Structure formats: C-alpha cells, structure tokens
C-alpha cells in the first residue's frame, strides 16, 4: 500500500472541504483544551486539600490509648473462662500515656526501609491562663527539625522562627486564633497550667496558622524538652511516635504490624481521614467524565463531517475503485482524515490546555484558610496530557473508522450506472 499516495488523497479531500475540516479540528482542540485544563485544575485543588490535611498528618501514629482492657480478670479464671460473663461498669485501667522503651522503638523504626521518617511527640492538654479566664488548649512537644522535614512545619509558622522553640528555653509557638484571643504578641510571656496543676511561664516566639480554625484555636507547639519540663517528666517521656512511610498505601498494613510488635496502639492515615480520600477520588472521577464526554462529542463532529464528505465524494471514491484502489485503501484514506483532524486538533488542544493552566495558575487566589497559597492551584502532571492525546487519537480514529468502513463498501458500479 502506497502510504504517501493515500496521505496525498486524504490531504486533497480535506483541503477541498477545509472549512468543515477546521470546524471539526477546532472541536477536538476545544475538548482537549478543556480536558487538560479541567483535570489540571481539579487535581491541583485535590493536591491542595490533601496538602492541607494529609501532608500534615502522620501516616501512622503510635500511642497508648486510654481504654478498658479487652481481657477482664474474670476471663482469666479457669472456672469461668468458657462462660458468657457480663460485667457492669467497666472503667479504663490506669495505663500510662507514655510509650515504653521509646528510644529502642525509635531506633528500630529508623532501620525499617518502609519508613521515611520518625518524629517523636508529646501531647498534653493545658489551660492558657489569661487573667481570670482559663482557656483549654493542647501543647505539642516536638522536635522542630524533624517536624519540618516530615510535615513542612515552617509553612504554617506565619510569624517568628520555628527553630526558636529549641534555641530559646521555655518558649512556645501559639495558634494564631488562640493568640488573637489572648491579645498576645511576639515576645510576650504567657502562663499555662497542666491538668495536674503544674504552672509554667512560656515566652511566645511564633504564631502558626494551619488554616483550620478549630486547630488554630487550641494547638500550640513547644520543644520536647520544654514540654517534659512542664509536665515534670524525665527526658524519655514520649506519648506519640509519628511515622511517614515511603508508600502511603501500606499504612494500614504496617500499622497493624507495629501494633502487635511494640504492644501499642496505632492508627493509619486512611482510617483517620477516610473522607478526604473519597472526596479526592470523586472529584477526579467527575473531571474525567466531563473531559471524556467532551471528546466523544467532538468525535461525533468528525463522524458527521466524514460522512458528509463521503456522500459528496461518492464519484471520487467510485473512480478510485474503478482505477484499481482497493476498499482497504479507500478506507485508509478516510481514517487518515479522521486521525489527522484528531492529531492536529489534539496538538493545539494540548498547547491551549497548557496555556489555560498557566493562566489559572497565575490568577490570584487569597484565602485566610491557606496563608501560603496566593494563586489557584494547578497540577501539570504529564499524565493528563498523555491521556488527552491518547483519547483524542482513539475517538477520532473511531469517528473516522465507521464512515471509512462505509466508503470502502461503496460499489462503483452503482455510482457509475446511476449517472
């Protein structure tokens, strides 16, 4: 088969109806543009929202939960072991919040190849004493360096330097909302009280803003040492170990494993934040659906134009066949037209799609909830561009295939006798 010749015939037929051809190509361009832009924008938003929650959350958290023991004393008695026992008024036992053997757990976790990073943490409830009023709050004792590596801590510290909590003794980074309530400024001293009654004065060295009002109202950060001092505990007192994994999908499995291995409680990010996963995947699904619908519509445009072209060019098809072109070659002529429209329209679509993405990426988008975000988020994943290209070729091929099939079946005798 002479490809060059078929290509020439296809080109000539297209140029003969260049206006309609262009309309069809513009249809493809439009749909690919929308497809790429929509998916880029949607996924940009998804990433932003994921960032807001998921990236600040540990993939796995190890801690001791306050809960009643599952095995009550009566279950251990030989007499009643196999009976159904009803116990009223079960209370949680006096389990310590601190993790045992923290240093050996941490060093063994660090050796696990599935783990990217380990961040120890102490969480304790406190009251901020403001004049006569006590406000409930939570102090997280952290290692700011590790916390920053794993959870981009510095992004949320809007004023002050996050490293100051280790370099300045007895210092604290307050949540922005809490700070506003207490009318506190940088350098001020505030007083906190622990549930056990320990009091301590802390210097405010920074403010942080996560974007979630409820968190900013309660949470504050201090160094691990300061928190241990506040609670009157020794320097191996740690209540939480936060883990980041190489593959977030493994979290539930690994969490179960550690739970058994270290005899602690472990929650994984999927269980803790299931609603975010669902939201993201539904949004992605919708944007794919819209994009693919657009492509199919443009496919119908191509189908129409090719059908019309075949109807108009019956004579030409008949003579091509009479002079020795086989049905297959005639079919290829029209498939070539369809795919050419798809490829040319698609390339422009990708270019425009990228252009629109850049445009959206530069539109100002200011929200109090996300201090680090100044423009609309866009994801430039080449995956979307590849999928767009693949789909434009596929739909235009199919849109070309059916009319081409019809053209290949044209009986030249019918046409020539009809004249």
């Amino acid at each position, binding site marked *: 088969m002479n490809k060059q010749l078929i290509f020439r015939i296809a080109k000539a037929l297209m140029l003969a109806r260049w206006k309609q051809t262009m309309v069809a190509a513009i249809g493809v361009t439009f749909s690919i543009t929308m497809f790429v832009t929509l998916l880029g924008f949607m996924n940009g938003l998804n990433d932003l929202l994921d960032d807001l929650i998921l990236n600040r959350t540990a993939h796995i958290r190890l801690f001791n939960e306050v809960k009643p023991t599952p095995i009550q004393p009566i279950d251990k008695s030989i007499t009643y072991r196999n009976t159904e026992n009803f116990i009223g008024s079960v209370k949680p036992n006096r389990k310590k919040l601190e993790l045992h053997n923290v240093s050996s757990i941490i060093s063994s976790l660090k050796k696990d190849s599935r783990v990217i990073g380990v961040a120890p943490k102490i969480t304790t409830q406190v009251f901020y004493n403001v004049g006569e009023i006590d406000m409930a709050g939570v102090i997280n004792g952290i290692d700011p360096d590790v916390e920053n590596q794993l959870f981009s801590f510095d992004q949320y510290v809007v004023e002050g330097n996050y490293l100051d909590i280790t370099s300045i003794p007895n210092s604290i980074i307050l949540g922005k909302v809490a700070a506003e309530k207490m009318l506190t400024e940088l350098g001020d001293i505030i007083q906190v009280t622990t549930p056990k009654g320990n009091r301590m004065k802390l210097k405010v060295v920074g403010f942080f803003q996560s974007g979630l009002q409820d968190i900013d109202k309660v949470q504050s950060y201090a160094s691990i040492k300061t928190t241990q001092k506040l609670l009157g505990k020794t320097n191996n007192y740690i209540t939480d170990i936060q883990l980041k994994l190489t593959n977030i999908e493994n979290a539930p499995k690994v969490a179960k494993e550690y739970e058994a291995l270290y005899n602690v409680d472990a929650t994984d990010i999927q269980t803790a934040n299931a609603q975010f996963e669902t939201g993201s995947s539904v949004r992605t699904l919708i944007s794919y659906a819209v994009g693919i619908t657009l492509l199919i519509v443009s496919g119908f445009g191509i189908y129409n134009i090719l059908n019309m072209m075949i109807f108009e060019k019956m004579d030409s098809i008949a003579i091509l066949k009479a002079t020795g*072109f086989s049905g*297959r070659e005639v079919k290829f002529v029209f498939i070539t037209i369809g795919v050419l429209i798809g490829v040319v329209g698609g390339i422009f679509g990708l270019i425009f799609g990228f252009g629109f993405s850049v445009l959206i990426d530069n539109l100002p988008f200011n929200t109090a909830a996300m201090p680090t975000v100044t423009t609309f988020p866009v994801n430039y994943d080449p995956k979307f561009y590849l999928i767009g290209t693949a789909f434009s070729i596929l739909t235009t091929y199919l849109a070309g295939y059916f009319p081409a099939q019809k053209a290949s079946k044209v009986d030249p005798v019918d046409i*020539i006798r009809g004249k």
Partner: protein
Amino acid sequence: MKNKIILSSHGLEKSFHDPMTIKVLKGLDFTINSGEFVSIIGKSGCGKSTLLYILSTMDTDFEGDLFIDGESMKNRKEKFLAKIRNEKIGFVFQFHYLLNEFNVLDNVMLPGQKLGKYKKHELEHRAYEKLKILGIQNEALKKPNQLSGGQKQRVAIARALINDPLIIMGDEPTGNLDRKNADMVFDIFKELTIENKQTLLIVTHDNDFAEKSDRIIEMEDGRIIKM
C-alpha cells in the same frame, strides 16, 4: 501478438434479484483478441452496460466464467480484482469522473502512482506523453473544472492509458459529447489501435461510431445476436 486472446467469457449469465429475479444476461460466449477495436451495440436495456461492468471486474455477482489475460476472474478477492483493474484495464466512462481536488496531471498520474511501477519523475514524463497524444499537454496544470467537456473526456482517456493497460473499456465514452468532440474521441481511439496496437472494447448506442470500429457485437435481450 495480433491473435493473442485478451479476454474471453464462457456462459456468462447475470440476474438482478430486486424487486424480482430477472435474467439480464443469458449465457454469453465470446473472445476479444489483442489489438481489436470492438464495439458493443444494442438497444437500451439489452444488457450491454451490465456486460461491460462484469467484464471490467467491478461487478462480481455473475454465473459462468471470465478470463482476462488467461486468468479466471471468478471468486477472486476484492484486492486481487482491484490490482487487475489497475494494471490491465483502462476505463473511460460517459462521465469523466476526474477528481476536482487534483490538477489534470495528477489525475492522469493517480492510477500510475497506485501501480507504483515507475518513479515519480518517470511517471510524470509518461503522463505528459499521454496528454500529448491527446493534444492537451498545455492543460496539464489546470484543474479539471477549468476544462471543456471534450477536454475532460480526453483527460479521462489519458488516465485510462497511463498504466499501458491490456484493454481499454468504454461505457458510452462519447455519450455526453457533441458530434465534433465525439468524432475527435473516435479518432483518438482509432489512432490508439493503429499506432499503439491498443485493444478497445466500447459500449455505445451510436451506430456511426460502431460502424467505424473493427468489429461489432450486437446484443438483444441478454443475448448476442451478431458478432
């Protein structure tokens, strides 16, 4: 060479089945030799065009057998028949069927490019030669719709000649032309048989045209009555 059989038919029959079965060709046997100028004449509806389309391999729905250049055309694949048409048969129809998207030269070259026997510049040279034979080499770069009816028909003949076919088939090639142009086309055909030893098979109802050819096959009601 003169007596080589180019085309022969054996008991050729053809029926149309819609709306009811009518037999249009009722067992035709004849042969056409190399270099002959044959006319098929007959009244409207006698089956002469139907016969031509079977002989041209475009209509494959027939009984009996047909041999072109010694090869049977019965039960052949569409692709094989397309190749036969490309290589061995040249067509001239009542209507010119030129592609308006291409210029005259490209129209003539198209079947040649399909055959792919010659390189592009050789083919172009050959196409010019054919146009010269027909006296329209000066129109080579024009679009078909810029030509007169007679000129278009001559381009169509040039296209039929480009692959040096064994046989040229014509379906009322002068039907749309006035006397002057019709005579010119006839003269061209005559010249082709004399100078190029070209075999011609022309369906016509123009008796003047037919009488000037070498041999007349007259048909009536699906049968050959005179050969």
